[in-house]
């Protein structure tokens, strides 16, 4: 089916338009949104199956051949990212049934969520640099809407930081696009692969590459431009924060991987800078988490430190390291979104996000404890869960590249992650419940609609750990195709089929 690469974008957009008409009716809006999310998942699975069969699927929008028109191109990396997006989208939409209240539905929670999912998928699928910018803006606008929505006061100061820094990132991005267009006369990423290498003024090209690196670095919350993340994420409603935590920074990581494998394959300076930044990102994130006692703030800082691992995988730029980065992306998105969903349940069962004010959940909520235990210790890298293999691949790739210091940093950050996860475990689950619990906040009966997605994602984490062999094989194949993108370029530039 020729339209298949466009469907993960078109379907959520269509459902979003439909959902606008159901804003006054939360129950029906939820049903439609859930149908839309499941449809999104089905389309993403179909795309994955087709990509495994044909390697690269290309759609020349409006039948304009590349590089003149805009194309959507789905290779293995794009397909796996779209699939994960759909999984998280579905989980979050199911969870939202009980967590998002009527005023938020009236404010347009469901349509904006669908637009956000469409924007993320668009960014993963596009083969054109300017189109990537447009999808980033779609994502950004939708995320702004979700950021300021909702009844809680006091969130706007964090929202201002998020908005200001993300707008800066888009400014860097579009400046770089202007410079690259001036040098090469094309914005098609496959076309740029050859034309960027042939540019005479390599210094200016490096400058443009650094601008793009800064832009995507802000999106991915790398050191030293991560401050918008801990300022904003803990103020969101729980399903929104889960989707943001899972997907948004990872779109930045994806864009970095795409740029520095396909477009700027010869810019070594940026990779050297990324190596240092990756190490500092890992360290600062994990140290920042150590001093926090609010569950979602701890998790927020851990996003930063984990993004460091993925960028380290990119910066090493060996097949093994890139495969590690891809495994890490998949593992991290599932685990991190799940932990944010768990934090909402902890708040419901214990009455607070603050670890000092909750306790005793292991005795009272066994299923929730399992739902936390699996993703938390996968994040910390306990074998045989998925995080262990992801970390192992990255550390092994660093050692093979002779970067022993980076391998030590990566291992050390893993240890400190265990410290944070054990902190949450012992405070929220093992410690006896504190005396002064505000009973009006506690809802001890957890809805199956909320526990269901948590346990399902935990199951996916376990399955990923057990069936890691095929996952690593797939990632190795994807990584080799990223490092040798000739098939991708041929598919995009090869004219109409």
């Amino acid at each position: 089916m020729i339209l298949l690469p466009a469907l993960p974008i078109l379907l959520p957009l269509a459902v979003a338009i439909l959902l606008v008409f159901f804003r006054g009716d939360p129950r029906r809006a939820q049903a439609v949104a859930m149908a839309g999310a499941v449809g999104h998942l089905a389309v993403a699975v179909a795309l994955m199956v087709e990509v495994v069969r044909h390697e690269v699927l290309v759609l020349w929008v409006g039948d304009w051949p590349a590089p003149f028109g805009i194309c959507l191109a789905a290779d293995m990396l794009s397909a796996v990212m779209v699939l994960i997006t759909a999984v998280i989208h579905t989980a979050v939409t199911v969870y939202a049934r009980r967590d998002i209240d009527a005023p938020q539905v009236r404010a347009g929670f469901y349509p904006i969520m669908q637009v956000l999912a469409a924007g993320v998928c668009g960014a993963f699928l596009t083969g054109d640099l300017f189109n990537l910018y447009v999808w980033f803006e779609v994502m950004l606008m939708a995320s702004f809407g979700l950021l300021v929505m909702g009844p809680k006061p006091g969130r706007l100061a964090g929202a201002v930081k998020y908005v200001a820094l993300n707008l800066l990132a888009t400014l860097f991005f579009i400046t770089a696009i202007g410079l690259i267009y001036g040098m090469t006369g094309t914005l098609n990423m496959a076309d740029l692969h050859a034309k960027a290498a042939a540019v005479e003024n390599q210094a200016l090209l490096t400058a443009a590459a650094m601008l793009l690196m800064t832009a995507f670095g802000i999106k991915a919350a790398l050191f030293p431009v991560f401050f918008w993340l801990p300022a904003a994420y803990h103020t969101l409603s729980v399903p929104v924060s889960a989707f943001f935590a899972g997907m948004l920074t990872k779109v930045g990581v994806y864009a970095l991987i795409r740029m520095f494998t396909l477009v700027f394959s010869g810019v070594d300076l940026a990779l050297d800078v990324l190596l240092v930044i990756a190490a500092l990102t890992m360290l600062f994130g994990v140290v920042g988490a150590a001093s926090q006692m609010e569950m979602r703030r701890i998790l927020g800082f851990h996003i930063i430190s984990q993004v460091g691992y993925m960028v380290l995988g990119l910066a090493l730029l060996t097949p093994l390291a890139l495969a590690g980065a891809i495994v890490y992306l998949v593992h991290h998105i599932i685990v991190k979104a799940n932990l944010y969903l768990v934090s909402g349940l902890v708040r419901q069962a214990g009455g607070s996000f603050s670890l000092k004010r909750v306790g005793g959940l292991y005795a009272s909520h066994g299923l929730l404890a399992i739902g936390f235990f699996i993703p938390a210790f996968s994040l910390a890298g306990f074998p045989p869960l998925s995080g262990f293999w992801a970390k192992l691949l990255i550390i092994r790739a660093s050692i093979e590249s002779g970067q022993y210091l980076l391998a030590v940093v990566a291992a050390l950050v893993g240890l400190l992650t265990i410290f944070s996860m054990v902190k949450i475990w012992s405070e929220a689950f093992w410690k006896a419940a504190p005396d002064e619990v505000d009973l009006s906040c506690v809802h001890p009966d957890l809805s199956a609609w909320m526990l269901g997605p948590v346990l399902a994602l935990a199951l996916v984490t376990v399955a990923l750990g057990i069936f890691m062999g095929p996952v690593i094989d797939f990632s190795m194949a994807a990584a080799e195709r990223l490092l040798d993108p000739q098939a991708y370029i041929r598919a995009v530039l090869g004219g109409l089929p």
Partner: protein
Amino acid sequence: METLLAGLVGLLFAAAIYLMLSGVLVRFVFGFVLIGNAINLLIFAAGRMAHTRPPLIPDGQATLTAPAANALPQALILTAIVIGFAMITFLLVLLYRTYSQTGTLDADDDAFLEETGRVAETCTVDSDADADAEVGP
């Protein structure tokens, strides 16, 4: 012509960065507007400037016969202007709401610092009671 534009773009960038680095958020908006225009000019200049005809294919021909102006940068700029307009509008509304909540738009003020600006812990699960009690202007 390109040299002149390059100088202008540099000047606009400098002014915009100066404004954006100020701690007052209204100046940040002005800087954002300025830098948006500077970038549009940059893309325009990147498409090469020349005094040529519009890119129209004459009757009976299949391709352009003479050198023509580059239309693509203008399409890019048009897109960027529309997006920039939406962003500025959103930013202004956000700042207005923030001002009515915090009473300040100085980013160095207490309201914007991590610890003092923290979210009041409320348990709003399934409760519609305080939903419409947003701070009004």
